[in-house]
């Protein structure tokens, strides 16, 4: 029964025009990045790309998926997660379909898990899609002799793919954590736009707060603090500490979001 509901949920999400447009937009990102770096290479030495990871993109196509996801994690992926979370509960309430599900009946806790599953599956799908397109476009535009890490070592293509896979999982988890919090908001309103606005505002405000060194006592509480540390996947050997911290941080958000959403759903009148 639950697999049938999971399947229905994912099919429903994939059928939504907005989802398709969003996925299309996401796929453009790695292509644009590869193309941008490729054109920059014509400008000769130092014509370079963006700082950080961008500096080693030249001739290093396997890094494109990681760079793309890393960049997108700041705004684009949270936006997509928030849209899915918004449509999941607030959107269904708005269309009156939530009632239909509840009298079917789907227990409210079950409903939340169906929604979380849909969010997770679609996040994983979107992130993987971006990564695959990134590998292809990166290889096409920038070439591929294995993956050069931030530490200056060069990994074989197979090792590189493992790193990309790991990064996909890490980024998906962050996305799901954000989505879970967005689901909590989503369970409390009938307006999907409110959910998106609230989630994105929070993410942006968190990032701004992260800039103030005077607020460093606050930083460990902000999920956005964990984002930059994920780049450690590109160091060799991988230092696991920050990656672990970021994932734990996201895990806390996931628990809080899911818990609040469950409380709200169970007590909600619809």
């Amino acid at each position: 029964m639950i697999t049938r509901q999971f399947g229905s949920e994912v099919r429903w999400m994939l059928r939504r025009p907005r989802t398709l447009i969003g996925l299309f937009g996401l796929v453009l990102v790695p292509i644009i990045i590869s193309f941008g770096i490729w054109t920059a290479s014509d400008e000769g030495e130092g014509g370079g790309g963006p700082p950080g990871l961008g500096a080693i993109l030249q001739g290093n196509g396997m890094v494109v998926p990681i760079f793309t996801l890393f960049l997108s994690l700041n705004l684009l992926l949270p936006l997509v997660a928030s849209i899915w979370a918004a449509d999941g509960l607030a959107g269904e309430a708005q269309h009156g379909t939530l009632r239909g599900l509840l009298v079917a009946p789907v227990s409210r806790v079950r409903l939340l898990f169906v929604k979380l599953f849909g969010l997770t599956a679609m996040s994983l799908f979107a992130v993987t899609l971006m990564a695959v397109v990134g590998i292809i476009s990166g290889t096409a535009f920038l070439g591929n002799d294995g993956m050069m890490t931030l530490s200056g070592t060069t990994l074989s293509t197979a090792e590189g793919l493992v790193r990309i896979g790991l990064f996909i999982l890490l980024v998906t988890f962050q996305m799901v954590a954000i989505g879970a919090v967005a689901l909590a908001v989503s369970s409390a309103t009938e307006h999907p736009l409110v959910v998106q606005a609230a989630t994105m505002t929070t993410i942006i405000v968190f990032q701004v707060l992260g800039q103030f060194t005077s607020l460093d006592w606050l930083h460990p509480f902000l999920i956005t603090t964990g984002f930059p540390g994920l780049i450690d996947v590109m160091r060799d050997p991988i230092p696991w500490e920050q990656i672990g911290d970021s994932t734990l941080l996201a895990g806390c958000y996931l628990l809080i979001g899911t818990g609040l959403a469950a409380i709200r759903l169970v007590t909600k009148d619809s």
Partner: protein
Amino acid sequence: MNKRKVTLAAAAAGVITGVAGLSLAAMPAGAGQPPSLPDVSAESLVQQVLTSKPGAFGGTVEVDNKLGLPSLAEIPQLADGKHSARIWTDGNGKFRAALPNGQSEQTIVNDGKTTWSWNSADNEVTKAEHKADQPKPDEQKAQSVDPAAAAKQVVGLTKEFSDITVDGTARVANRAAYELVLTPKASEKTLIREVRIAVDAELKMPLRVAVLTNGASEPAGTVGFKEINVGAQDPKLFEFTPPAQAKVTTPEAKEEKGRDRRPELGVEQALQGKDPQIFGTGWDTVVGARIPAEAMTQVPAEAQGLVDKFTKKVSGNWGSGQVFTTKVATILIADDGRVVAGAVPEQVLFDTIGQVK
């Protein structure tokens, strides 16, 4: 109990766990119970530290710095705040250091014959083949974040001018350690109150160095292992092949370019230069030098602004100049190019600057 209540309780427990997790993560890791170790005399511990020969190890070092230094692009690890670095050594001179800087990384590898220095920010490798006894600047930089090497140096230089005690034990990087405390003798005119060195009980290798200054209870600077694994390291770590896309240069070429780009580093270079003049001994040693006049006038406007921001104008019977103060050190730059610096109050510098040739 009814199902709804169970659900609500479980959900609330989830939320509480999440919040607790966040708070735990935000809390600085507690030092934990200090281990109990057999007593050891200060003298023998010092002796053991100086003679210990650390074997192979790899670990993560955390530099917690409240010195009040302006951040230098060259050594981001020394700017204020917490920074971490990873170091590996095979115990026989080969080593690797990874110094992350935001999203980029500087990697320094000594493979026994060559010191490679890679910076991902500019996709550039500096290759220094080892020649007989030449200073290797990047290597020094890498070692400055190695608590073991730093501590050994401090102990070596100051033990005669200090009261040395063993002040209990500590747990550093999950290893038991003695706290060796060097307190400058009363006659020393220094800013430093004490230096605490956590010495591994088993390996006698310093694991952490903390510098405490007069009038502050928190250390002004700490360099210590956050995590360490002792034993043979993967030999691949001590090899380096420049990536295909990277530009490879020599340190000489790099230095040329660096000098053009950053004239404001003149002071640092002068003090580290060929013939610094040393005045005094022990904790209140003062280093002096003279910056060539043209370097003084070369300072560009914006760099001058930076200098003015961090310094204070002073004058005395020695002349006039600017004094730059941090918690652990003071630098006096006279307008005529004389420079003196030391871990001393500024008065000591005023008294010493006259001796600079």
